């Protein structure tokens, strides 16, 4: 018995290959005139969802993004690799993970999704919270940092990447699964699919339409570059080394 719908929330972030710059006023990261792409972990989630569809385990893959007008671009690219339908919730607001999770909960309810597959974290803020918060709000089980996903008999068997190695969990569906780097390698879109995706419609709505309280729950006080690495120093003797360690308060 195959699942009806997989929902894949995706985020438009600064392209992974671009060097991130902190804004001069330290309020955040520079995004003006910077190349934007789909969050790489979300691309991996889409790839996994499409693979499940190809295995006959899922009937329809739906992608959703919450972002500005330009975010529609990533939905078109994802429709070229196998996403069947996409939803664009337009807003210029920068939403925090809890707000995103609340909106996604409404989308899940409207879509009647059987499974949510998303990237473990976005590479612009590295919050790594949305998936877990969503699981909590929906009261669904969750399997995060997935490096392997199998679906059978109403359950998802997921190999998780954890500090000590790999952990295999079994979760009852419906569930939230977050994708980690080694889950798969996203495919290239075929030219004819890219052309076809240009003509597909995207279900667009505004954030206000969803009636969710998106008030921020925390303030970002400042964003800074990590301290520049100081050069190493060669010492001539063990005594000098010990003295330096003492002077630096290490010993």
């Amino acid at each position, binding site marked *: 018995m195959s699942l009806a719908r997989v929902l894949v929330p995706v985020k438009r972030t600064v*392209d992974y*290959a*671009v060097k991130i710059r902190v804004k001069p006023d330290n309020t955040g990261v520079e995004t003006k005139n910077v190349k934007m792409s*789909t969050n790489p972990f979300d*691309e991996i989630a889409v790839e996994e969802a499409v693979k499940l569809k190809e295995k006959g385990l899922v009937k329809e893959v739906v992608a959703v993004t919450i972002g500005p007008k330009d975010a529609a671009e990533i939905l078109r690219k994802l429709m070229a690799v196998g996403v069947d339908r996409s939803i664009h919730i337009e807003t210029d607001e920068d939403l925090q993970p809890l707000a995103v999770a609340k909106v996604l909960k409404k989308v899940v309810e409207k879509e009647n999704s059987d499974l949510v597959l998303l990237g473990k974290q976005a590479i612009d803020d590295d919050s790594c919270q949305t998936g877990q918060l969503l699981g909590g709000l929906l009261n669904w089980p969750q399997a995060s940092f997935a490096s392997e996903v199998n679906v059978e008999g109403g359950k998802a068997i997921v190999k998780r990447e954890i500090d000590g190695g790999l952990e295999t969990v079994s979760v009852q569906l419906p569930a939230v699964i977050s994708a980690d780097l080694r889950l798969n390698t996203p495919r*290239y*879109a*075929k030219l004819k699919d890219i*052309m076809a995706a240009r003509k597909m419609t995207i279900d667009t709505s505004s954030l206000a339409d969803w009636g969710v309280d998106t008030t921020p729950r925390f303030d970002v006080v400042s964003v800074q570059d990590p301290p520049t690495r100081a050069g190493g120093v060669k010492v001539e003797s063990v005594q000098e080394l010990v003295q330096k360690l003492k002077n630096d308060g290490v010993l």
Partner: protein
Amino acid sequence: MFAVRSLGFTKAIGKRFASQAVTRNPNFAQVNDADVAFFTSVLGEKGVLTEAHDIEPYNADWLNKFVGQTKLVLKPTNTKEVSEILKYCNERKLAVCPQGGNTGLVGGSVPVFDEIVLNLSKMNKIKDFNATSGVVIAETGVILQNLDEFLKEHGHCAPLDLGAKGSCHVGGNTSTNAGGIRLLRYGSLHGNVLGVEAVMADGTILDGLCALRKDNTGFDLKQLFIGSEGTLGVVTAVAWLCPPLSSSVNVALLGTSSYELAQKILLKAKSELGEILSAFEFFDSHCMDLLLEDHKTKKNPLEDDCKFYVLIETSGSNETHDKEKLNNFLESTLDQGLVSTGTVAESETQQKDIWWFRETITESLRSKGKPYKYDISLPVPAMYDLVEKMKQRFSEMPEVFVCGYGHMGDGNLHLNIVAPEFSDKVLNTIEPYVYEFTAEHRGSISAEHGIGLMKTKSLHFSKSEPMIQLMRDIKKVMDPNGILNPYKVLPEKE
């Protein structure tokens, strides 16, 4: 890994290169202890290498095909030191082999016999950059990739790009008039080099480091140093005109079933993508097979194997405008049946990955066996004919691998034949046929790789005798003792 050569100085080098046999010029002196003492007084001990294991890497080229026998490597840190070294060598009649990143493919960057290697890696400072004019002034040993990264921080980029960028030097690029994948868009170094500082054979420093777009004051002397492969002077600093960085870059990889169709795609790209086209490269199915064989974790970005792959890159200042142009172009190539399959990079990571396929072919050729590399300019319609003819010539030798790839947009073919071992049989099957074919089509036997040691005897296929004689006359004026990179570029007079 490097072969240790113990040939006497009067023997020919390596039996495998019968056509390159040269004899050591008896007019050159041999390095002695007094010489080493002098160089040490100029450069300090750190700048003078005499131990065999220290010298080894400087004696062999990247392909490990050309191996010299130097006993001395010098590493100056500034132009004045280069001048003192050359003045001394000229007086002593000691031959010198200038060396940059040592990534050349025609044996031009390593000694043939005991020429002193003058390695310029330590002269690696970027001296100045003017963002308004886009002119950068750099010492000769700046690595191209480092220059490019520096320029990117300042909204510009290097005017050329090639696979060796992680190791090659701007001085070497200039001395060899390096080409690369962006020539189609930014033109050659003959146009982008605005000034050169060089040291002549007798130690005279020629400061031609002008940063001006326009300067018509007498003969354009810098052109003598661009492409003469270190035989007329040692380049110690350059002024390059660098283009602004494009904010919108797109990369597409297309697959097609014939070279005819690939040419139609090229024509269409030039007319429909016009000013945003920044690269048009091709490679054949043999190259793709080679890459996938050599890198087992990689997969063909296209879902089908194709006979020809075309890589198109666009660079412009307006993402929306460029994407629309590119999408319209791609849609019509599909509709017109010019392309059987293709893909467009979705992110910078995918862009780099697609370029990886084109740029790694050279490395994989080296891993496969002993490569014979030919870099030929031909009229675009004739380019792949040469590859087909070469495949036919080796039809009785299935252990030999033949493939073709290159800068299709510039009519520059990289024909590669890889054999399990270097051998005269293989060499004679390739040469002189490959040069005769080229001459018949009025092509160039060396589009961008230069002559080095490898092609001196074939120079006549592309340059007439009066032209070669004029080159010899100029060499005589600039380097009367012939100490700069001897045995290279110009053939010995019969």
